[in-house]
């Protein structure tokens, strides 16, 4: 009987422990997010009149520019991505197609700062295009053109891949029907492709728009002046240069409001593609074979391919021509690399621990809690990193030297920043594993550490490794938080890169960018390899 009681107790513990861990994780996230928010809110009401939005001309200009550059960037990226994706979908067999699509995945895996250097290598003052055309063109990339080029460089390949994957899910029966009916290309687009594209368009547009709206690094490095400044960059400037926390609060509140409004709008319009069951067979499309179609499609693919590939090539060649050996033996560089790796490692561990605790508490729990967790995760996505960072900057500067808190804040905020991504990788995998093994595990009474060691870790090794690598690469390449909190004592690789760019040590910057790119890709590649090789 005593043993029976003990077992009941242990069963209770088995259910309670994940719940406590999950709630602690949620509480921690809430503390960090709402701490920042509360700091901003109290300052906003006591310290600074929000009415200034309507009277301050510069503020109005910043808001308009923020929205304008995001709109232009998204329209151009999406406008080019749709025909490019269609060209890829129509020409499904040309040599190099797979490699090109892999290349299209690359910009997303690179830190924004590395992308900036790549874009500068092609389009910059001493970039290839200006070198080729000599004084003929001699245009400056800084300002709106640079921001647009960089945003399209990142988002065109992303949107192309997303549109392509939706086009590739069109059932093969549709193509059989189209060839039987001898549909011309125009009708195929209208009746088969457009309905699919239309369904995913709002979601992809919203994603790209949000990325452009919160792309701090690109605007900071390529904006080049007060006339092309976004809210996030203005927040950074008011904290780091003008030291005007009141103004930072105003800007952060506006940024948050805009993000929230847009998120609400995008939720309203985002739909998921219905699952289209289909025969598994590759059927050439009836509209792909004509000479003009091939000419048009391949031309488009080459242009888009060059737009993505040439900056990357410039990045590699410029980086190699820098004195990498000298860079790697400079104490400051070595110190920045060490700092970066340690901060990113700890941030990734924290991110995974939070994500795991939250997800484990959802599995086999009631749906209210599940909703709370996914809400928490999307709140973080809404909270722009700079807003989060500036909130804590303002909160902590009352208690002394803000910069002494730097490592802790960089770790915590980077971990939270990576959380939605980790959640998206781990969540479905954990749900699937629980569906498959849940009953068996409970019937055998495998709980706690034994469960993690024997079942969860081996089964979920792949998504765990991927989520870890993603979180680490994201933290490693981040410039947002460290730009706010970095100092002589704490400098990361991206910050060092940014500083050498600012002081016109271009060769150093190019070398560091290549190193950073290699580091991020190596992490992602290793995780991928490790997760595949293990049985």
């Amino acid at each position, binding site marked *: 009987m005593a043993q*029976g009681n003990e*077992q*009941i107790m242990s*069963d209770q513990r*088995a259910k309670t422990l994940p719940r406590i861990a999950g709630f602690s994780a949620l509480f921690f996230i809430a503390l960090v997010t709402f701490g920042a928010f509360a700091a901003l809110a109290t300052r906003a009401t006591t310290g600074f009149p929000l009415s200034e939005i309507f009277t301050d001309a510069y503020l109005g200009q910043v808001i308009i520019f923020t929205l304008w550059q995001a709109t232009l960037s998204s329209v151009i990226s999406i406008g080019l991505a749709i025909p490019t994706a269609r060209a890829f979908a129509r020409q499904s067999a040309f040599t190099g197609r797979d490699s090109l699509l892999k290349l299209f995945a690359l910009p997303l895996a690179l830190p924004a700062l590395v992308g900036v250097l790549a874009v500068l290598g092609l389009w910059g003052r001493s970039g290839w295009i200006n070198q080729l055309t000599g004084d003929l063109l001699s245009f400056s990339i800084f300002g709106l053109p640079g921001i647009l080029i960089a945003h399209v460089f990142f988002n065109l390949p992303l949107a192309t891949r997303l549109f392509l994957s939706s086009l590739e899910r069109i059932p093969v029966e549709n193509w059989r029907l189209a060839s039987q009916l001898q549909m011309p290309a125009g009708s195929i687009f209208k009746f088969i492709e457009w309905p699919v594209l239309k369904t995913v368009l709002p979601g992809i547009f919203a994603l790209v728009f949000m990325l452009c709206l919160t792309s701090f690094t690109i605007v900071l490095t390529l904006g080049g002046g007060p006339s092309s400044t976004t809210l996030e960059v203005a927040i950074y400037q008011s904290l780091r240069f003008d030291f005007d926390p009141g103004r930072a609060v105003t800007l952060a509140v506006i940024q948050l409001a805009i993000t929230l409004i847009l998120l609400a709008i995008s939720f309203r319009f985002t739909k998921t593609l219905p699952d289209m069951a289909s025969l598994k067979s590759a059927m050439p499309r009836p509209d792909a074979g004509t000479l003009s179609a091939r000419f048009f499609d391949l031309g488009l693919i080459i242009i888009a391919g060059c737009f993505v590939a040439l900056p990357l090539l410039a990045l590699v060649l410029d980086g190699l021509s820098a004195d990498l050996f000298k860079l790697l033996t400079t104490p400051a560089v070595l110190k920045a690399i060490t700092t970066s790796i340690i901060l990113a490692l700890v941030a990734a561990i924290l991110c995974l621990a939070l994500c795991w605790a939250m997800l484990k508490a959802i599995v086999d729990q009631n749906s209210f809690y599940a909703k709370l967790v996914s809400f928490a995760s999307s709140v973080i996505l809404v909270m722009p990193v700079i807003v989060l960072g500036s909130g804590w900057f303002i909160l902590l500067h009352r208690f002394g030297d803000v910069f002494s808190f730097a490592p802790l804040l960089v770790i915590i905020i980077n971990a939270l920043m990576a959380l939605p991504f980790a959640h998206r990788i781990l969540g479905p995998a954990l749900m699937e594993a629980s569906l*498959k*093994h849940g*009953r*068996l595990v*409970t*019937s*055998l*009474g*495998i*709980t706690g*550490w*034994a*469960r993690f060691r*024997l*079942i969860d870790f*081996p*089964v979920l090794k792949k998504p765990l490794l991927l989520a870890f690598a993603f979180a680490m690469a994201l933290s490693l390449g981040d410039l947002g938080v460290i730009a706010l909190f970095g100092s002589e004592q704490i400098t990361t690789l991206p910050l060092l890169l940014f500083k050498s760019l600012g002081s016109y040590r271009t060769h150093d910057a190019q070398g560091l960018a290549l190193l950073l790119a290699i580091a991020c890709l190596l992490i992602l590649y290793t995780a991928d390899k490790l997760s595949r090789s293990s*049985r």
Partner: protein
Amino acid sequence: MLILKNLEYAYEQTRFDFSLSIEQGSFLAIIGPSGSGKSTLLDLIAGFISPESGEISFNNTVFNQLSPAERPVSMVFQENNLFTHLDVETNVALGISPNLKLSQSDRNSITDALQRVGLGDYSKRLPGELSGGERQRVALARTLVRKKPLLLLDEPFAALGPALRTQMLALVKELHEEKNLTTLLVSHQPEDARSTASHTAFLDNGQIEVLAETEKFFAIKDNKALRDYQGSA
């Protein structure tokens, strides 16, 4: 004696209400149309779902407050009975100790169990290297080492061909008799019940419509739902 007293449960539109009592050592086959509640009945006994009201007891001990692992129950599912990343021996061992703390006598009983189901040489193989029938044998070996008096089988051989299914049912029947188990088998095939079970139950609309000794069960002609289920034969 396994007794279910007014076990009530609701899922979507269907209300389930189960009452039954069978002697220890019985072999009860459960048949019925899809959605009639066959798997729900086993899930309630195993503790994967909790009834709104009612009571489950075995040999006068009420166990529906216990967690699945503490109940006097072993269960074999239609699929996913094994962890595919663990070898056969480890899969069986988890039935004895959920954290793999094994004594020498535990190891011996694992070897014995694998030998008993005809997989003595397979202990180091991974589930992926086994056939569907062999995988279910491993699951049966695990129920042997768990030494629980109730054995629940939820269509465990539905994916196997007719000859193999007959073979596996014969094995189950042998184990059932050797260990004096009380066995509940959910099946889609009335002939499984006829060949193996001492008793047969027919479920319809979340209720146990008929429960009788197998021989008598198949002589029943006056139940419309059962007649509809079996067809005109």
